[in-house]
């Protein structure tokens, strides 16, 4: 059950990255485990801020300062697990 929800979340996150962040990345090229940072997809600060804003809007919650961490934003897997726990 959780896995299905997380997969749906990951699909939405990929949608946001490919459509809303103006990064020229196709949805199907984004892998779940790849880092969102410079060694992976390469989201810069502006893209990360836009990403956070879109996530908060789409999923209806707000990240607290303590929740924004390198680990959380290391991959879509970790991010989806977190969003799933916030929206349960």
């Amino acid at each position: 059950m959780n896995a299905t929800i997380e997969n749906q979340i990951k699909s939405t996150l990929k949608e946001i990255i490919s459509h809303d962040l103006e990064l020229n990345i196709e949805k199907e090229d984004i892998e779940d485990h790849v880092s969102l940072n410079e060694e992976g997809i390469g989201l810069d600060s502006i893209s990360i801020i836009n990403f956070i804003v879109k996530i908060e809007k789409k999923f209806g919650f707000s990240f607290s300062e303590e929740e924004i961490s390198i680990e959380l934003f290391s991959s879509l897997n970790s991010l989806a697990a977190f969003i799933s726990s916030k929206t349960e």
Partner: protein
Amino acid sequence: MIIEQASDLLLGRAESSSILCDDRHRLSYAALKEAVDHLSIFFLSIKKEEAYCLGIALKNEIPHVAILLALLKTGQNFYLIPPNSDPKKIPDFCDKILAFKDSEKWEVDRLSQWIELNPNPSFTNKCSNIAPRKGAIFLSTSGTSGNPKFVYFQSWKLIENARNVAKRFYLASHHHVLVPVPIYHMYGLGVGLLPSILSGSSICLISNNNIVKLLDKSRQFKPHVTLLTPTTCNMLLMLDKDIHRSHMYITAGAKINKHSHLKFETRFGQLINLYGCTELGAIATSGLAYSQAERLAGLVSPLPSVRMQVKTPDKGEIIAKHPAGFEYYIDKKGRKMPTDTLDADEYKTRDLGEEISPNKFKILGRIDNCVNRNGFLVSLQEVESLMEEVLEETQQIVVIEQQGQNVMGSQLLAICELKEGKSLDTHKAKKRCQTKMKRFLIPDSFIFLPKIPRLNNGKPNRNTLKETYRTINT
């Protein structure tokens, strides 16, 4: 100043609890000193050629810092290569390039695990005896026009410069300094890393900084001092989250506008403006005892032993006399270049400024970015900053010079990016500007856009705007 003396000072003042850390490493000062001593033996052993100059791409990582300190200690000549530089563009005066392998480990007695020395393919023997023989540091200028030129610093002057910064900020061994700006650049090196080491402060380096890393490290490291750029300040405001508050934030480069500065201080803490350049390092900062109004106005006072002056009574070019500035420029072959910015000890900054009160200066922008209006030299940055104060509906304003002249002189166009949901028209904007600005400072025409084209770093893409709007009749 003897180089060895300077390098000892680099490692002399730390408390046992002071540490240096980055994304992957954490080290005490004692361990760093040991590593530097080991590395120094290596560098002394390879120093065989008189014109020896190492090219090194320094990243914000502890092993890189150890190498840097060993190079300083042994008086090596080295050039700080901006990361991701085209290998073909490494200057000919570097005979070797020190490259770091991507390795977690960096044992100082197994150097081949983590560094390698490669010859520079473009090195030419003709450079011999041109570059200085010992203790020379070469930095790229951040200028974007003309042929590449390199700034030659004597290492002891770089350290003297850092000592000046440490004095201004009263850095001490119990302080934590967060350095998310690159240390291959004068700001990160001369304002962040070296003054902190001189003071024995704990240092946290962030490599490839982004907003998530900055928040994460701020929370963990609890800095007293954080180095930022204007873009990062604006991004923190955009993100609109609380962060661990530093006692002091330092920002260098173009000043953020008054509204954002006030918002930043209200939300996060004191934001100090730093004025400097690659050639001189830090020149001036907002004083720590300044009022908030003075910081917001962008006033700066020269650092200890630095003198600043504006030679014309009103506004004019800022001239700085710095005891620890660069020596001269060299070209890619290591030849001394003529410089028209250095006259005796006085350095012409090419910045327009104004002395507001004794020893308090306002930096108005690059002279190259000035136009003549009504017989006055007007900085376009100053116009933007004045407009941003009165046009609250805008979140970014770029003023460009258009083709042709009018009765005022150069024709100015203001390109205004509106905040979401806000509207403004030329008539209203001009009326509002007239309440606070002299007539000749008010642009002739205005356009309002929902979004201004931006570069990857978030700054407006001025070149695109100039190309698009230079000849358009609005």
